[in-house]
């Protein structure tokens, strides 16, 4: 074999030589400037992740204030008005300013590297999307200063994250707090749609030579699915916000019940966005699991085609389940039956995925390093979250528990137990690639165990006040309801999780300066991002890679037994 016809191994080998990225010492101002004007997908990815982590701390602090308020019955730690603002801002922030940016951040960073591309398809659109999302976050939080409403009591939005009409109409929500909410969500939506278009174009049009769709790593596959979902699900929210703003500023009547407008229509529009949004958040978590579990089991992913089909299937089914958030609003028996059954249908592709992960673990040489620990916890917690999801999908059961703490526990099981745990796994797994240094394993294990203990104290126990009838979003409760001890356990668990997150933050900062040097491929992994240096140079790969299988680095490391021989 003549090496001249084989650019791929050369390109990869050059990467494995760990040539240090050439850097010129510059002033502090030049450094900041270079980050602000950057169109590099890696830097934008890191900006997204840092931005999301800052808001994670903010929204986490809001959650802790909610938990302090609920620690005792008749507590008056915060006023009822402040409490409304806290849960509104907590929900809105966690979904729009933490969940979506951090997942887009990892997508930005990883998708071009995994498909062997130089950058995203549209680098400047990428920068625009990030900065408009960042602007949306600042706008939302500026409402604390700028949103003064009736009698000076209003500041931050207080209409809950789903902002049911007509509560958001001018008559019931005077002042500007709701305007800040609507405009921030609108701007954030524009950023999300821009990023989604960019990821789709990148995955389909920027793949390196030989990377057919059947060789595409699962992470880009899932990000393509997510991007499609963003396009069809976030756009309705953008449209609904435009309608709300037309009502508030131009005197329209979309949700004005006195003029014949409908409160139910808003609920439909919101949940047409709201439920696919759950999958927009959870599919990237699945994507991380798809990459991490095989590497730490030392086996190729089990059932790759089934995984792709299941992910795309989840994407489509999730578009037809939204009204299971609305069983108590009152629908026809056909509507109830349809949305019960369609919701249960989601459990089939998710079940396929779960069993494929288990089959990947089966017989593997499992390494219990921090990313894998979080992934294993994710598997357990995701199954439990799915089971309570099936319970809630039954309309008759839902009528009993709608808007109770059982629902709050269920979706936090998904959002924290599955998504946040996999985000932590992804941070431990890809931090070495992003910074060139390993995160401290001892602190990682401490973080993991604190997180597991805190999570289960909070969210296992939170199901019970719900079953006992405690509604969500209440400011306080009576002492004789039997909810006190349960709420106290939940609150203590919340603080343990907060400590766990602080351990992570310390680890992130500490390891950036003192961590062990990672080298290009610390986990002995198989996808292309590990073929280049850590951190990768601005151009990613010295020579455009060429791949011949799903695991190009396996082929490179095991020339006697390459995957490509079995395709």
């Amino acid at each position, binding site marked *: *074999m003549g*090496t001249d*016809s*084989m650019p*791929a*191994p*050369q390109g990869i*080998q050059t990467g*494995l030589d760990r040539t240090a990225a050439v850097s010129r010492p510059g002033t502090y101002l030049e450094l900041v400037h270079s980050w602000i004007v950057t169109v590099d997908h890696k830097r934008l990815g890191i900006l997204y992740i840092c931005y999301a982590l800052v808001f994670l701390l903010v929204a986490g602090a809001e959650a802790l204030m909610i938990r302090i308020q609920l620690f005792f019955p008749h507590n008056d730690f915060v006023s009822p008005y402040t409490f409304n603002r806290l849960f509104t801002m907590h929900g809105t922030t966690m979904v729009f300013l933490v969940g979506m940016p951090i997942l887009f951040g990892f997508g930005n960073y990883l998708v071009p590297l995994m498909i062997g591309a130089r950058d995203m*398809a*549209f680098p400047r659109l990428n920068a625009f999307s990030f900065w408009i999302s960042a602007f949306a976050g600042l706008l939302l939080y500026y409402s604390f200063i700028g949103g003064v409403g009736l009698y000076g009591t209003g500041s931050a939005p207080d209409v809950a994250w789903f902002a049911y009409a007509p509560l958001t109409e001018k008559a019931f929500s005077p002042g500007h707090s709701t305007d800040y909410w609507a405009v921030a969500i609108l701007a954030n939506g524009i950023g999300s*749609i821009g990023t*989604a*278009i*960019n990821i*789709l*174009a*990148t995955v*389909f*049009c*920027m*793949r390196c*030579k*030989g990377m057919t769709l059947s060789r595409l790593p699962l992470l880009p596959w899932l990000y393509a699915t997510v*991007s*499609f979902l963003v*396009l*069809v*699900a*976030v*756009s*309705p929210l*953008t*449209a*609904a916000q*435009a*309608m709300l703003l*037309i*009502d508030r500023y*131009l*005197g*329209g*009547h*979309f949700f004005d019940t*006195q*003029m*014949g*407008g*409908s409160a139910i*229509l808003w609920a439909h*529009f919101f949940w*047409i966005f709201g439920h696919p949004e759950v999958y927009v958040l959870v599919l990237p978590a699945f994507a991380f699991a798809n990459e991490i579990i095989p590497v730490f089991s030392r086996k190729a992913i089990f059932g790759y085609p089934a995984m792709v089909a299941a992910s795309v299937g989840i994407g489509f089914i999730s578009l037809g389940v939204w009204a299971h958030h609305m069983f108590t609003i009152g629908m026809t028996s056909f509507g109830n039956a349809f949305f019960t059954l369609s919701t249960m249908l989601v459990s089939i592709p998710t079940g396929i995925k779960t069993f494929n992960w288990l089959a990947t673990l089966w017989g593997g040489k499992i390494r219990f390093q921090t990313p894998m620990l979080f992934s294993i916890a994710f598997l357990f917690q995701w199954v439990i979250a799915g089971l309570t999801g099936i319970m809630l999908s039954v309309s008759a059961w839902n009528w009993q528990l709608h808007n109770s703490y059982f629902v709050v526990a269920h979706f936090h099981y998904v959002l924290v137990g599955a998504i946040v745990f996999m985000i932590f796994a992804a941070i431990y797994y890809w931090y070495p690639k992003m910074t060139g240094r390993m995160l401290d394993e001892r602190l990682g294990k401490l973080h993991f165990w604190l997180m597991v203990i805190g999570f289960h104290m909070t969210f296992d126990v939170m199901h019970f006040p719900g079953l006992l009838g405690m509604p969500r979003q209440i400011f306080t409760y009576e002492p004789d309801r039997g909810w006190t001890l349960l709420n106290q356990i939940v609150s203590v668990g919340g603080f343990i999780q907060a400590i766990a997150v602080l351990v992570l933050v310390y680890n992130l900062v500490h390891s950036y300066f003192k961590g062990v040097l990672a080298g290009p491929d610390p986990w002995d992994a198989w996808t292309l991002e590990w073929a280049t240096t850590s951190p990768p140079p601005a151009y990613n790969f010295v020579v455009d890679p*060429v791949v*011949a299988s799903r695991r190009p680095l396996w*082929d*490179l490391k095991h*020339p006697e037994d*390459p995957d*490509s021989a079995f395709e």
Partner: protein
Amino acid sequence: MATVPLEHVRNEGEWKLPSRGMVAMAGLITAESSIFLIFVVAYLYYLGRDVQGPTPKEVLEIPYFGTVCLLSSSGFIMLAERAIEHGKIAAFRLWWAVTILLAAIFLGDTGLEWRKLIVHDNLTIHTNLFGTCFYSLVGLHASHVIIGMLMMLVTMVFALNGHLRAEHSYRVKVLALYWHFVDAVWVVVFTVVYVVGR
């Protein structure tokens, strides 16, 4: 390090990928379609639920002229696409200008219609549910026409000062795809507002 035999990679022939401009425009069209869908659903849902007039039947007249202009512009933009592909810049300029002109006529027609509704029929966005839904949906479409027109005008400037050549036909095609979408949406809006809703 040993190298991997990659002969089958070479056997796979030319590596072809879809064009990123077209994929991105398809993505944008998907997103925009969802936005229009929501406004269309609201329009249909609120038909006949008004507590006060005027009703669509009383005030709306079918805008035949504007519709013919807008829909025929899709044909002229195709002629322009073909012209630039073959490097016929003069023909491109002509068909492109006709497209812009037809779009402008459509907008003018809409403007006259709105003027009649506001001045003569006293229907504003504030009057009733019909007014809210009508001006939002038709206005959303008209704003897309305006955006398309602005982009076509920029292209026209490049065509007139000679910066546009046959190798840019691909970019023209991406823009034309957007314009076809704007026209296709009008078919839906027209059907909903003037046929079903009247």
